[in-house]
C-alpha cells in the first residue's frame, strides 16, 4: 500500500480561511446579490477544503496505468465535482430569485417579517394578539353578575330587603 503525503499545503489552508472569512462577511449582508457572492465564496472554500482532505496531487487515478508515482485520490475530486454542480444550480436559482425581488420591489434586499414585527409591537404594548369574546368587556363583571343573581339554595337574608337586590336571575 502506497501512503500519500497527507500534510496539506499551508497556502491552500490559508486560502480556505480567507474564502470562509470573506464568505461569512458577505453572507451577513442584506442584499441577495452579496449574499449570493458570499455563498459562492463559501462553496469554493469548502470545495478547496475537500480537495485538501484528499491529500497531495499525484498521478492520474486510472487502474493499470503505472506512472511510477502515487495516484491522487479520485474520491475527493468526485465529491467536489458533485458539489460544484449543485452549487451552480443553486446559484442560478438564487439569481432568479434576486431578479424577481428586484422586479417586484426595485431592490433585492431581504426584508423583515411583517407579521413578526406586528406581534412584537403588540407585545411591547402588552395588547392581546386578537380579540377574544371571553376577554372582551361584556358590560357586567363577574362580581356584578354574582350580586344580580339570586341564590335559590341559600336561606333568605332577613336583613336585606329582596327588592334592593337588583333584577332576579337576569
Amino acid at each position: 500500500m502506497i501512503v500519500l503525503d497527507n500534510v496539506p499545503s499551508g497556502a491552500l489552508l490559508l486560502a480556505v480561511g480567507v474564502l470562509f472569512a470573506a464568505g461569512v462577511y458577505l453572507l451577513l449582508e442584506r442584499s441577495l446579490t452579496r449574499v449570493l457572492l458570499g455563498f459562492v465564496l463559501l462553496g469554493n472554500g469548502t470545495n478547496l477544503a475537500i480537495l485538501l482532505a484528499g491529500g497531495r496531487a499525484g498521478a492520474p487515478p486510472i487502474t493499470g496505468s503505472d506512472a511510477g508515482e502515487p495516484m491522487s485520490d479520485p474520491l475527493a475530486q468526485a465529491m467536489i465535482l458533485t458539489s460544484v454542480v449543485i452549487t451552480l444550480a443553486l446559484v442560478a436559482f438564487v439569481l432568479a430569485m434576486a431578479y424577481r425581488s428586484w422586479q417586484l420591489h426595485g431592490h433585492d434586499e431581504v426584508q423583515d417579517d411583517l407579521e413578526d414585527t406586528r406581534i412584537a409591537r403588540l407585545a411591547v404594548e402588552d395588547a392581546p394578539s386578537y380579540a377574544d369574546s371571553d376577554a372582551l368587556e361584556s358590560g357586567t363583571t363577574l362580581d356584578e353578575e354574582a350580586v344580580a343573581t339570586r341564590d335559590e339554595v341559600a336561606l333568605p337574608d332577613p336583613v336585606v330587603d329582596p327588592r334592593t337586590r337588583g333584577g332576579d336571575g337576569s
Partner: protein
Amino acid sequence: MNPWTVQTLVPLPVLVPLFAAGLALALHRYQRAQRIISVVALSVVVAASVGLVVAAHDGPVALDLGGWAAPVGVNLVADPLAALMLLVSSVVLLCVLLYSMAQGIADSNDRTAPASKDAEELRKALEAQDPDADEDGRRDVLPVAIFHPTFLILAAGVADAFLAGDLFNLYVGFEILLAASYVLLTLGGTSERIRAGSVYVVVALLSSIVFLLAVGLVYAATGTVNMAQLAERLPEIDPGVRLGIQALLLLAFGIKAAIFPLSAWLPDSYPTAPAPVTAVFAGLLTKVGVYAILRTQTLLFPPDETLEAVLLVLALATMLVGILGAVAQDDVKRLLSFTLVSHIGYMIFGVALATQASTAAAIFYVVHHITVQTALFLVVGLIERHSGTTSLDRLGGLATLAPGLAILFFVPAMNLAGIPPLSGFLGKVGLLEAGVLNGSGLAWALVVGSVVTSLLTLYAVVRAWNKAFWQPCPDDRKLPDPSPLPWGMVGPTAALVAVSVSLTVAAGPLYDYAARAAYMALDARSYVEAVFPDGAPRGTGTSNEVTDDGEEGPP
C-alpha cells in the same frame, strides 16, 4: 443474478419519482397525464416502502449501486428506521399530492386559492403584454406546470436522504429535496413568497455548506464517507477531532431540523407557501433533519456525555420557546408552525437520552408527528378555502358552518396536544418514561418541560379551536358562499386524519417496530454486517473483481 430480490425494492423510492418527474416535465402540456404519472409514481413508492418495512424487520437491506462495492461505490441501506420513515413520508406525500391536485382542479374551474389566483393574474398580465401570443407559448410561462415534477423530485430527495448509506449521498439527498423545496416555496413568485423564500433559501444554503464542510472533514479524518465504515472508524480517531466533526454535523442538521436557536427561519417562511406545500414541508422536511441527527448520533458516533447534555438543554429550549411563540400568534398557520418547532424538541429529547427506550420513543414520536402535523396543515388549508382567511381575528362559528371540518381539526389538534389515548400521548409517555429512567437532574428538567409544553400546546390549539370553531363570528360580515368544499380535498385530509388515528389503534405493533428500529440503529453491528457481509472489507459488487485485478493500486 436474479434481479427480483428484496434488494430490487431499495432503489425504487428514489428512482421512480425521479424518472416520473422527468416524464411529467416533458408532458407539462397534458395536465391529466401529469396527474396520472404523479399518482402512479407515488403509489409505487408507497408499495415499495411497505415491502421494505417488511423486509427490513429481520435486518437492514443493503444495495451497492451500479455494481460498485460498498466503500468505493455508493450504497443504499434500508434498515428498519429508514424503512419506517420512508413508509410514513410516502403515505403523507401521496395524500398531499391528491389534495393539491383536487385544489388545482377545483381552482382552475372557478374559485379562489392563492396559487391559481397568482397564475390567473400572471395570465392576464401576459395577455395584456402580448395579446397575439399563442396559448401554448403562454402556458409555457405559467408556473403551474412545474408543480408535479418538483413535488416528485422532493419525494425522491426525501427517499434518498432516508436510504443513503453514505454521508455524501445523504448530502446529495438533502440538496435534491432542498432545491425542490426552494421552488415549491416560491411557487408563483409573489412578493410575499419571494420575501419568505429569500430567508429560507439563504438559511438552507448556509446549512448545506456547513454539512458539506463536515463531510469533507470526516473524509479528512477517516478516509471514508461510507456510514458502515465510519461506524467502525470514527470511535478510533482523536476524541477532540471527533467532537468537532460531530458538533459541525449537529449544527448543519440542527438548522434543517429547526432546533432552537437555529429555528427562527421556520415560522417566518413556511406559512406563506400554498397550503399543501406548507403541509408537506411541515410534516417532512424538519423530520429529515431529525432523522439525520438520529442516524449520525446513534450509528456513527460513540456516546458523548457533554454533547448529550448540550442536546438536552437545546431540546428543552426548543420546546419552551417554540410553544411560547405559538401562544402569541393570531394566525393559525403561524401558530402551527411554532408548535412544529416546539415538538421538534420532543424528538431531540429522545435522541439526546441515547438509550434504546428513548430512541424508540423518539422514532414513534417522529412517525406520529409527521402524520398529525401534515393533517393539521391540510385542515388549515381547508379552513382557508372555506373562510378565505386563517387569521383567528376574523374566523369564527365554523363549528356550525362546517361541522365536518371541525371534527377534522379537533382530532389531530387533540392528538398533537397529547390527549390520551391518542398516539401523541403514547409517544410522550414513552419519552417521559425514558427521561425518568435516566434520572439525572437534567432529564427530570426535560420531563417537567415536556409536560409543560404539552399543556401549553393544549392551550394554544384549544384557543384556536375556540376562536375559529366555537365562538360566533366576530363581525357580521356576510357568510361565505355555501358551496361545499371539494371532496378531492376533504378526502385526502380525512384519510390522513384516519391514518393518524390508526397509529393509535396500531400503537402496539408500531411501538414494537420502533423499538426494533432503535435497537438496530444503536447497535451498529447489524448495519455494518448488512453492508459488509461476513466481515469482508468490501460490499457485494462486481468492482471487487476489477480491483482484485489491479491490486497494485491503493486499496
